[in-house]
């Protein structure tokens, strides 16, 4: 986990004394999340086997996402979207984690991420979970904020849907 002092690198150390309550926010806006938000990985639409467009109607976050498979391997996940830092960073982390994985491994990562996001802040990621989720464990803090869980899950649900379409199976709704 990034150090709790990581947020000071965002230039608000002087404000910290004044807004003590904000320290808690650090658990949501982890440095690694803000990094992915500012420098998203794999962004842009490239060739794919299936394309989906998902929206979060309560807040207007949107993502268009394409998947490409080679044999049983996730060859590419490309995306364009607009939304909050959480939704955009989550798509970037997804790209990092899933591209190059075997489908079964990718699905396991998706399910583990879903489990973490639905934990309402009650789940402390252990070493095994960190091994599976890598950067995505940084989203653990988001699970404490019910209004933001959908933001974090937007791209992951889109990926699941696109994968079902690309592989010719029904979306698992």
């Amino acid at each position, binding site marked *: 986990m990034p150090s709790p002092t990581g947020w000071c690198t965002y230039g608000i150390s002087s404000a910290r004394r004044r807004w003590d*309550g904000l320290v808690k926010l650090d658990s949501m806006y982890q440095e690694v999340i803000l990094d992915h938000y500012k420098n998203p990985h794999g962004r842009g639409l490239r060739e794919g086997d299936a394309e989906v467009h998902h929206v979060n109607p309560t807040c207007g976050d949107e993502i268009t996402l394409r998947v490409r498979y080679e044999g049983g391997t996730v060859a590419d996940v490309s995306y364009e979207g607009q939304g909050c*830092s959480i939704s955009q960073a989550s798509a970037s982390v997804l790209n990092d984690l899933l591209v190059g994985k075997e489908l079964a491994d990718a699905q396991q990562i998706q399910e583990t991420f879903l489990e973490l996001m639905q934990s309402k802040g009650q789940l402390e990621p252990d070493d095994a979970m960190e091994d599976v989720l890598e950067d995505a464990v940084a989203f653990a803090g988001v699970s404490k904020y019910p209004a933001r869980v959908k933001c974090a899950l937007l791209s992951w649900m889109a990926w699941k849907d696109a994968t079902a379409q690309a592989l010719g199976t029904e979306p698992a709704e």
Partner: protein
Amino acid sequence: MTQIPGLLDTEAIRKDFPILGRTVHDGDGLVYLDNAATSQKPRQVLDALHEYYERHNANVHRGVHVLAEEATALYEGARDKVAAFVNAPCRDEVVFTKNASESLNLVANMLGWADEPYRVEAGTEIVITEMEHHSNIVPWQLLAQRTGAELKWFGLTDDGRLDLSAVEEVITERTKVVSFTLVSNIMGTFNPIEAIVRRAQEVGALVVVDASQAAPHMPLDVQALQADFVAFTGHKMCGPTGIGVLWGRQELLDDLPPFLGGGEMIETVTMHSSTYAPAPHKFEAGTPPIAEAVGLGAAVDYLSSIGMDRVQEHEHALTEYAVARLKEIPELRIIGPTTAEERGATISFTLGDIHPHDVGQVLDEQGIAVRVGHHCARPVCLRYGIPATTRASFYLYSTPAEVDALADGLVHVRNFFG
């Protein structure tokens, strides 16, 4: 403490609202700036609800026992209060619904079922505006889809006002109904309605006014509006949730068919057919929201005791101050009118390219409650090329100190994501 002429004695008013005294998170005072979504409730309204259930609860308009009579008197008394509040010529013109959405859906459905000359059907037109809340868009889309009528609308100018440059082309001889908001729920814009009403009357179209964001904040006079229907909701004007109002001209309420059928709305029923009670009961099928109506009556009393002209004056003064403070913040762009003129105390804005969700989250951590998103007015966001806004909305208990907290909070948001 900032001294601004025109403000109400908020120190006294805030004592009436218990929730404003609570803290959030780790002891931050609550700065509640989400009044366009729902207002807080004064002690007087909470007491009225409590008193109703503790002492008078019964079903209305049936039964001859004491409680039934008291409950009926309270429910109908609330109708009298609301009628006076909006200067209705007749108390029977006030129909209780569950919210403004239901009021607007009720009108749309009545017009779909109506006989000539009101009937909306293929070959006729419905006119709305691009500034509407979804509740004044979707019912009309549904009506258009079901009947084959054409849905048209007034667009917006770059500064957040209705584009009325082509009134005569938008409202035509084929137009059956024109429905629009008096005050924008996302930009706060006051709409000049005279030109629309005049043109609608010229072509014989009915005029429906969504006053959801007006009734809580300014004197509302349905006769002066010259509208045919006016819809608003109780919970944005210090009342409880679950109670809305549809005011309609008596002649129309008499002529138009009921929408929901059931108890209370009938005169006689046989297995073959029924005749209907006169308005407003014709439109209030089933057990109504009795306690909620009583609560709304108490809210109307509360607002009237302060004076709606004073509420409007307070909010105008606060809006002037808020607009000035917000303009000091780099990269803040107000969506809608950028001065306090002809606008209410609801201000939407963007802050650089920081997503409103992130703005709202960091404000919340400082105890400041705002709304983020498209505010059920997504076409407005599309019109201005933005996915969402942050919206701060003030009310009679809002203070300059809360404006300052917002401005300071936004500076902090910029630093956080800077």
